[in-house]
C-alpha cells in the first residue's frame, strides 16, 4: 500500500533526478546531481559556461547516457530504456535548443509540422490548422512560408518554441533560450516563455548563465558549480546566501543585460 502510494507520488513528479554523474574521459562534468521539478513549476539552472548545464538537459531527454544515477520522467527511469519506450516519453517533452536547431531544408511551417506529421494521424487540413495555431501562439503566423535562414535569431527561437510545443508536452526544456539575442528580443522571449507557462502549466527547466531573466521566469533556481548543485531555492534564498561564489555570481550577473 505504502509502496503504491510512493509510486503514485513519484509519477506525479514530472522530473526527478537522483545522484546523476557524467564524465567525458577524465573530466567529471556532473558529480552527483539531485533535483526535482513539479508540474507547473519552472526551475532555472544557473552556472558559468562549461559547467555541464546543457549536458544535464541532454541527459534528461535521453540524448546522452549518464555514467550513473537515475532520471525519472513521471516516475519512469529513462536510463537504459529501449529506444521505443524512450521515444514515447520524449513525445511528452519539448526541447528548445540553444541555436533553435530548425531544419534548414524545411520552411517554418514544415518545421513545426514535422513532429505532428510523424506522430499524430490527422488530415493535411487539420495539421495546417494546428500549425497555424502554434505559430500564432508565438506570433509567427506571418512568416510560415519562410526558410529558417531568412528569419532573425529571435524569430528562430519563436519557431523553435512552436515546434517544441507541437505535441502538447507537459515538460519543456530550454537550453539558453535567449543566448545571442539583443536585450529587447531577449525580454520578449522571456515574456513569451512566462505566458506559455501560465497557459499550459508545464514543468520547465531553463538552463542559462544569465541571472536576470531567470529571476523573471523561474519559481526556483539551482546554481551549478564543479559538477554539483551549490545552492537551490528561490531567488531570495540565493540573495541571502553568504557563499562567496554565490555572491560573486549574483553581483557579476547584475552587470549583464536582460537575458533569460
Amino acid at each position, binding site marked *: 500500500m505504502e509502496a503504491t502510494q510512493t509510486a503514485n507520488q513519484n509519477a506525479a513528479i514530472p522530473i526527478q533526478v537522483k545522484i546523476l554523474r557524467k564524465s567525458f574521459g577524465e573530466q567529471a562534468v556532473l558529480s552527483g546531481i539531485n533535483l526535482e521539478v513539479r508540474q507547473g513549476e519552472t526551475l532555472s539552472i544557473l552556472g558559468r559556461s562549461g559547467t555541464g548545464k546543457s549536458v544535464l538537459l*541532454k541527459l534528461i*531527454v535521453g*540524448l546522452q547516457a549518464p555514467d550513473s544515477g537515475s532520471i525519472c520522467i513521471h516516475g519512469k527511469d529513462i536510463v537504459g530504456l529501449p*529506444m521505443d519506450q524512450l*521515444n*514515447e516519453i*520524449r*513525445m511528452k*517533452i519539448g*526541447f528548445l*535548443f*540553444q*541555436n533553435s*536547431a*530548425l*531544419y*534548414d531544408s524545411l520552411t517554418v511551417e514544415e518545421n513545426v509540422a*514535422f*513532429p505532428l506529421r*510523424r*506522430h499524430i494521424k490527422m488530415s493535411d487540413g487539420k495539421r495546417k490548422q494546428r500549425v497555424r495555431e502554434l505559430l500564432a501562439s508565438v506570433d509567427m503566423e506571418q512568416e510560415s512560408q519562410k526558410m529558417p535562414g531568412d528569419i532573425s535569431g529571435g524569430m528562430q527561437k519563436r519557431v523553435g518554441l512552436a*515546434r517544441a510545443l507541437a*505535441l502538447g508536452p507537459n515538460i519543456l526544456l530550454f537550453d539558453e533560450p535567449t543566448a545571442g539575442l539583443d536585450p529587447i528580443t531577449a525580454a520578449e522571449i522571456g515574456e513569451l516563455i512566462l505566458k506559455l507557462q501560465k497557459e499550459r502549466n508545464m514543468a520547465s527547466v531553463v538552463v542559462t548563465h544569465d541571472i536576470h531573466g531567470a529571476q523573471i521566469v523561474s519559481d526556483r533556481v539551482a546554481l551549478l558549480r564543479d559538477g554539483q548543485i551549490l545552492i537551490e531555492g528561490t531567488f531570495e534564498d540565493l540573495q541571502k546566501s553568504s557563499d562567496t561564489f554565490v555572491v560573486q555570481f549574483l553581483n557579476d550577473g547584475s552587470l549583464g543585460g536582460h537575458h533569460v
Partner: protein
Amino acid sequence: METGFPGAKTAVAFFEWFGDLGTFCGRLTAPFFVPPYEVREFVRQFDELGSKSLPLAALAGAATGVVLSLSTRDGLTRFGAESLLPAVIVLSIIKESGPIITALVVSGRAAAGIGAELGAMKVTEQIDAIEVSAVNPFKFLVATRVLACILMLPLLTLVTDFCGIFMGWVTTTLANPISLRLFLANGFQNVTFGDFLPSTLKTMVFGLIIGLVACFQGMRTHGGTEGVEHAATTSVVLSSLLIILADVLLVRLILVFFP
C-alpha cells in the same frame, strides 16, 4: 592509448574507424528493415540524388566514350583489327568503365553532399532535434540516403553506359563513317547478360559504400565549420578509395561466377 612505436597512433585510429563503422552499421540494421518506413524522405533523397548526379554521369559517360574511341582506334589500327572497335568500346564501357566512372562521379557529388549536409545538421543540433522529436535519425536520415544511393547507382550507370556508347559511335563515325545500327550490331554481337547484369548490379555495392561512408562521416562530425569541411572531404576520399578496392574484389568475384 599510449603505444611505443611510431605510426601506432595512425594504426589505432585506422582500426577504430572500422570498429566505429561496424557499430554504425549495427545501429543501422534495425531501422533499415523494421517498419514504419520513411517512404516520403526516401523518395525525396532518391529524386535529389538522381537529378543532381544525372548530368554529371551523362557527361562523364560521354567523355569516356570519346576517349575510348580515340585511344583504342590507334592500337587496333596497328594490329589491323579496326573492325573490332565497336565491340571493344561497348564491352569496355559496359563491363568496367561505365560502372566505375559512375561510382566515382557520384562519390564526388553525393558523398560530399551527404557528408556536408549531415555534418552541418550534427553541429547545429538538428540531428538532436530530430531525436528529441521521437524520430530515429538513423531511420529518417541514414537509411533513406543509403537506400537511395544503392538503388540510384545502377540507374545512373545505365545513363553513363548509354552516353558512353553513343559518343563512342559519334567519335568513331567522325573518323571512319559507320551507321549507328551497324556500330551497335557489331558492338553487342558478343555481349551477353553475363557481361551486362553483374557489372551493372555491382554498382549497388558502390552505392552502399558511398551512402554508408558519407552518412557515417556526417553523423560523427564535431567541431563546427572545420568539422563539416572534414566530413565532406573524408566522405569523398574514403568512399572513392573503398570503391576502387571493392571493385578489385567484385571483378574477381564476377569472373568466378560469370566466366
